[in-house]
């Protein structure tokens, strides 16, 4: 009696194709859903870590000729680049200066709504000045990471 069936070569080929198909589905799922979730979590964790590392402290405050000067230091791990300053009345023109580098900053730095000014990054142990072109005791700065930091002298 002759038995009907498939040959060994065909069996191996079918099994091989089935296994490739299953692995393809798994890998495709892994690279689309899982990887995007993982990467978004990693990205979020890194941004949060950088935000936590940006610590701005107010050292001294004064107003002169309608300009508010906030003397600040960064005691965090990450540099702070100010890209906008908001007062309770809305956005304000500002500049950031390092008096140790620019002692004559009051005459040389110019105000802008978006440019950091004379010295871009608040970092290291120096005391920086954030000058705001209006009289206010409270500002909120927005950093390059989109991190809002409130600075109040009141």
């Amino acid at each position, binding site marked *: 009696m002759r038995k009907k069936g498939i040959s*060994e070569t065909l069996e*191996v080929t079918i*099994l*091989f194709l089935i*296994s490739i198909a299953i*692995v393809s589905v*798994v*890998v495709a799922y*892994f690279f689309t859903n*899982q*990887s995007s979730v*993982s990467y978004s*979590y*990693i990205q979020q*964790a*890194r941004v*949060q*870590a*950088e935000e*936590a*590392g940006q*610590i*701005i*402290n*107010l*050292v*001294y405050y*004064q107003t*002169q000729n309608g300009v508010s*000067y906030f*003397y600040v*230091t*960064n*005691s*965090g*791990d990450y540099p702070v680049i100010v890209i906008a300053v908001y007062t309770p009345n809305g956005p304000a023109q500002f500049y950031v200066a390092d*008096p*140790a580098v620019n002692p004559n900053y009051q005459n040389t730095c110019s105000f802008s709504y978006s440019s950091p000014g004379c010295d871009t990054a608040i970092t290291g*142990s*120096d*005391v920086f000045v954030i000058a705001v072109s209006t009289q206010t005791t409270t500002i909120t700065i927005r950093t390059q990471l989109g991190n809002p930091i409130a600075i109040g002298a009141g």
Partner: protein
Amino acid sequence: MKEKKGQISALFMLLFMFLMVLLIAFEVNILTADHELHMQYEFRAQVLTSQRNTEITLVTQNPGADVKVQNNSPFPVTITAVLTVDDYGNVKIYTHGHGLPVTIYPGLTVSLGGFPQACEIIVVTSTGASQILKNC
């Protein structure tokens, strides 16, 4: 036939190992980011706690001659900058010279040297804590 089945098993094993390596790589990435985040939160908490507990007092009352300060905090404090404000509101920032930065151990007194006559004197520490030693 047994030899072919062995080859198929080896193929499955290789694919399984490939997937495991991918999985471990992703896990390592996630754990690294998670660790960095926790380290930063811990660092931030330490800095803010240190700021709250920093207490520096002025010992010498004549700032024109010699400014002596004492650390009354329960931990060493490093002074990185001194700000002086004169009667006209002019601010001068000293970050180098005058022995700065200087670390003061708990209970000890350190001389920061002579500063121009100032109405206000503010010291800044490495953790960002600032203290007004003398008010106008």
